[in-house]
Structures are given as structure tokens and as C-alpha cells.
């Protein structure tokens, strides 16, 4: 077991495949936030993807294969108490591990797989959920300029029931004006492979969200999933909207008082 200074909780970051490859800065921001608010972060290098894309499209055998890999990487850490929790900057991937692994390891699965899935599921948290509920963070000292609004991603809101936590953290930001988003609870239209298989419906839903964003007057729409963020930014940019979608970890991690808030967070790499 690694040395554990004081009583700081130790978390393993599950960075998720999309953050890993498309938005590593979101992962780095998550690490900074966790470390600054009292957790030690480890990063198991063998991690890849939770398997949700395959599961949602109906490919349970493929999803199970990916889930087994996830469990092989994270379960020993949990079981041997080398970490206290797994934290991911995504509501959707956490919903997969916490809820949908139970479906995946309900059918053809061994008792051992099921036990591991339940154990890992119970120890996996979404980033803002972990910051607020476990680390007890109430206010994050960060400075943001402009008008902000919040889009609750569907899996975060309806599968995990996490809503108050990100909203509370956003309310504590300095300099931000929080504005109301009409139809905030409506899906943005991403939906995994749905965005490709039903691209026209997905686009119509995204455009509706873009219209609501324009009506809100927000410069930035904050959310907890980079998948929905990619879809929305894709539409906002193509349609020439001013508003941009940004991941909450990046926004909360704007500690630099000398202008980092002015940088367009969607371009920073």
C-alpha cells in the first residue's frame, strides 16, 4: 500500500476516453480541483473506456468485455483499499458504472463479476458530486467573467440525481452572472450513437437547445459531460452562435487572476 499522508482521501481518476483523447485539459482541471480540495489523486494507466457506447447501442457482449477491463483496472484498488473512490469528470460514464453495469452483469455474468461490479459502482462518483458530497466543498474560489448558464446533462440529472451540487459550485463563482436557461432540463440531443444513427433528430434537438441558449443571453453554458459539450459546440459553431459550451471542471479551475478567464476555454489546449 502506498503511503497515505494524513487523512486525505485518495481517489483514482477515471478520466474517460473522450476527455483523455479530446479534452485532456478537463482531466487536468479535475485533478487540480481534487488536489486543492483535499484529495490525493492517482491515475491508473491501464484505464480506457467504460463501455457505454456499445451498451447503449445494444451490444452487451462487447460492452461486457469493456466493463470487465474497467473492473480489472479499478476493482483491485478498491478491494485492497488502496483508493477510497473512483472519480470521473462525467455524469454519463459514472451512470454506466454505477447503474448500467448491474444490467450488464445481471444476465450471463458470474457471481464474482457481479460482486465486483456492485463494489466498484458504489465507489464511483461524478466530480462535482464527490467535491460537494464527500469532500464537503461549499465554495470554489474562481473568477469568471460574463454570463453563465447551466445545462444539466440527462444522465447526471436523471440517472445519478446530481443537480444541486454543480449548481451550488457555480453559484459561488466570483464575477459570474448566472442566467436562466429556458427548457434547461431538455436533452441536448447527443445520446451516444443516437447522434449518428438519428443525426437529423439529434441535430434538431441540438438546434432547439442553441435557440434557448441564444434566448438566455449566456456567453457560456456549463455542463458536466464533454460528450454533450462536443455535440453542442459542434452545432453552436456551425450555426455561428456566440455562446460556447464548457466543462464545469475547467470553469471551476480558473484560479489564475490575471486573465485566464478571458481565454476562450473551448480553444485552450
Amino acid at each position: 500500500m502506498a503511503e497515505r499522508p494524513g487523512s486525505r482521501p485518495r481517489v483514482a481518476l477515471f478520466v474517460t476516453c473522450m476527455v483523455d483523447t479530446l479534452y485532456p485539459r478537463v482531466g487536468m482541471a479535475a485533478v487540480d480541483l481534487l488536489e486543492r480540495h483535499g484529495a490525493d489523486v492517482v491515475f491508473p494507466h491501464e484505464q480506457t473506456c467504460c463501455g457505454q457506447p456499445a451498451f447503449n447501442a445494444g451490444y452487451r457482449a462487447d460492452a461486457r468485455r469493456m466493463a470487465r477491463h474497467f473492473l480489472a483496472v479499478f476493482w483491485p484498488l478498491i478491494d485492497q483499499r488502496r483508493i477510497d473512490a473512483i472519480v470521473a469528470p462525467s455524469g454519463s460514464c459514472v451512470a454506466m458504472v454505477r447503474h448500467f453495469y448491474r444490467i450488464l452483469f445481471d444476465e450471463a455474468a458470474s457471481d464474482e463479476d457481479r460482486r465486483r461490479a456492485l463494489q466498484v459502482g458504489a465507489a464511483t462518483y461524478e466530480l462535482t458530486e464527490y467535491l460537494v458530497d464527500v469532500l464537503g466543498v461549499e465554495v470554489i474560489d474562481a473568477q469568471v467573467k460574463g454570463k453563465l448558464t447551466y445545462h444539466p446533462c440527462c444522465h447526471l440529472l436523471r440517472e445519478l440525481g446530481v443537480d444541486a451540487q454543480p449548481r451550488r459550485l457555480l453559484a459561488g463563482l466570483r464575477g459570474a452572472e448566472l442566467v436562466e436557461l429556458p427548457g434547461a432540463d431538455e436533452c441536448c440531443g447527443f445520446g451516444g450513437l443516437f447522434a449518428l444513427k438519428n443525426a437529423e433528430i439529434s441535430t434538431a434537438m441540438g438546434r432547439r437547445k442553441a435557440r434557448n441558449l441564444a434566448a438566455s443571453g449566456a456567453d457560456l453554458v456549463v455542463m458536466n459531460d464533454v460528450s454533450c459539450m462536443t455535440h453542442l459546440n459542434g452545432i453552436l459553431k456551425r450555426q455561428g452562435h456566440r455562446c460556447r459550451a464548457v466543462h464545469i471542471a475547467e470553469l471551476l479551475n480558473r484560479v489564475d487572476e490575471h486573465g485566464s478567464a478571458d481565454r476562450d476555454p473551448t480553444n485552450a489546449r
Partner: protein
Amino acid sequence: MRVDVRAPYKVRVRQALGDEAMRTALDRATEQMSARCAEAMAAVDAPRLRDEARRIREHAIEHLPELLEALERNLTANGCHVHWARDAEEARQTVLNIAHRHRVRQVVKSKSMLTEEIRLNKALERAAIDVVETDLGEYIIQLAGEPPSHIITPIIHKRIEDVSELLQRELGVPPTNDPADICATARRELRREFLRADMGISGCNFAIAETGTICIITNEGNGRMVTSMPRLYVALAGIEMLLWQVASRSATGQDVSVYFTLSSGPRRPGHPDGPDEMHVILLDNGRSRILERGYREALLCIRCGACINVCPVYREIGGHAYGDTAYSGPIGAVITPLLAENVAAAKELPFASSLCAACRDACPVKIDLPRLLLDLRHDVVQRKASPVLERVAVRAYSETVERPGRYRLAARLARWVTRLIAGGKDREISRLPPPLNAWTRTRVFPSFAARSFHEQWRRREHRDMRPPTE
């Protein structure tokens, strides 16, 4: 009708998305309906009521055989004729036999999705029997020659302007945008039909086993006329629409619907009103197969339409895009493929959802609709009915994901490729080859990061010997 319900799925979706009048109508109505429903549910102890409603429905489905036997016994004791129908054909034939025996020329109907499911009107018309729908919405779409596009608001796809134009054309009444005027016109026209009809046909919101009673819930009073004015009354009930004892806020956002009609048999000696004969047709049409296939949860549905009103997909495409089916929206995407074993619908409808779960949270009997959609998708994949390219891609992806070395290599490859084809200072991709052009036709895609998180973390470990990796 702009959406051809018999066209292939992709065509229907495109027609629906291009129908601006319909989308305006849907926007107006769904916004109002979902707000009203949310308000009505907030006024009561919704979690407790939903739990209770679910328990009542679960009890009914668990005890289906006993309840059906009791229902038949008690209906018969009340003087009703009970008929069993295995499928749509048997149900249609039963209605036709009753009609022929009594030389029926004209039928009035109250709104019933079950009769839409079995396409009863067409069968009656083919037998030279006039059929008149008496629910206002159904009356209007019958005049328009269209199928309903929503379980409880069949003309949700029409703006009031479209309705006015239709009535002007079909009935020669002056144009109006006042619902009260439209209602008065229908009332005047329908009064004649009620007086002329030989047979009334209704569906059944609930059948009560203990008392042998058929319940229908309506808002316009037409249901009462249908069940009591003509000399014959025929009720059609799905075998799952059964309760032992009685229990609409979730549907229309009313505290309670205006008319709750209970029919427990024909007119008895001394009764001034009521039909001379009452028939009840209990229809399976795929319902017991739904039980066998493990989709019991889908049979809990009470057809209130709450899931449809909150569905963001329905809101964009409306009911006709779900095809030639009585049921649209999330519950339609589940039961249309199950009821008819409709192979084409099974391949398409369960995927017409972003799995946002708004439907599950709105359902008054807490049906886990996203779970049912996921299970149906799994069935499609199990049957090897999903697209070959998709199967190959998912397999390749999963085999990459379970091997970290291969995953990291694939990520590097994807980075090179995307950064090669990306343009502009934002390094964004505006065009991808098929099938990924489904994304880039309407959305830009970001290129992969110059250094993945994996690589950045390794650097960080080397640089400052931060906490070690597990």
C-alpha cells in the same frame, strides 16, 4: 398529410422535420401540456401516488389470469356478452358479426387507441357500415383522412388555423380560430349522428374485474352518448387494461377528467336509457407474447401519454414519424415492435431515443422506458439485425478498449489523422467521410488533443514525481 406513415423510417423523419406547420403545432401543444402536467402533479403527493399506481398495475398484471376469469364471470352475470379475441383479425370479425346480426348501418365511436391498433374503422367501412368518430380531435382527423398522432391528443400535429381551414372546406362553416366555435360546430354535426347510430363502440380505460364494469374516461361527454344512446354497445379492451378495483393528472394536467363513465351491462327492465345489448371484446393481439418475452413492464402502461408529452424526440418529429401505428413517443417505440412483432419497426423505433429518461420520470406508473428501449436494442443486436458496419465497428472498438496498449496506439493514430484533416486555428473538422459525415453535416468535430491525458500524466510523473501511479 405531410408525413406518409407508410414511408420508410428515414423518409418519415425527414418529412416530419421539414413540416414547419406541424412543428409549430407540436411546440405550442407540448410546451403547454408538459407545463400543465407538471403543475397538476406538483399539486399532489406525486411520489406516493405514483408508487401506489404502480402497485395497482403490478398487482393486475401479476394476477392477470384470475382477474380475466373474474371479469368474464361478472360481466356475464351483468348480462353482457363476452368475446375473446386472439388477434386483430378475430377482434374485427367479432365486431362485424355483431353488426351483421343486428343489421347495423351506422356506428358512433368514442376515442379508442385499441381500435386504431386493429384498424377497425377500415374493416367497418369495407363492410359498408358508416363510422363516425365523436371525440372532437378524432372527428377532425377523420374529416382530414389522417391517423391520430398522439395517444390522447390525436390532432396535436395540427395548428388551430389548419383545423379551421379543414372545417371550412369539409363542412362549409365560416373560418374561426376560437376552439369554442369549432366545438359548437362538431357538437351540432355529431348530435345527428348519435340519434341515427345503431351501434356505439368504445375502448376501455379500465375493466373492473370485481364488478364486471367497463370504465371510460373522457372530457367531452361523447363517451356517455356512445355507450348509452345506440341500441348496441360494444367495448373493446386489451387484456392488460384490467384492475381488481378502481384508482389524470399525468395525461392532460387536469385534477380529474370531466366524464368517468362506468358501464356494467345493458339496460335492465325499468331503465329508461341504455343499450339493449352490451358486448365486451377482450383482445390479446400480442399482449401475452409481451409477457412471455419478459417485457411485463410494458403492460403496466395506462395509455395516458405523459411520456409522449415530455419526449424531446417526439417534440421534433411528432407521432406520424413513428409509422403506421396507433402508438407513438417512448411507449410507442416500445410497444409498436412488441405488439405486432413488426420487424422493421423493431429495428428502428427503439433507437429513436437519446435515452434522456424524461419519460421514465413522467410516467405515472413509473415504467422504466429507457431500460425497455435498451433491452429492445439488445434484442436487435442478438438477432444480428443491426447494420453490419456498426457491428464491425463496435467489435473493433471493444477489442481496442480491452487492450490498453492498443487503445493508446489507436488514440495516437486518431490524433494524427484528425489533425491532418482539421482546419483553422481551432483545428476543427468540418467534413468527415461516411458514415461519420452524419455528424459533420450539421456539426463541427474537434480534432484530438496534441497530447492525451495519458501522455500528459506520464510527463507530470517524470517532471515532479507527483503521487505515484497505481
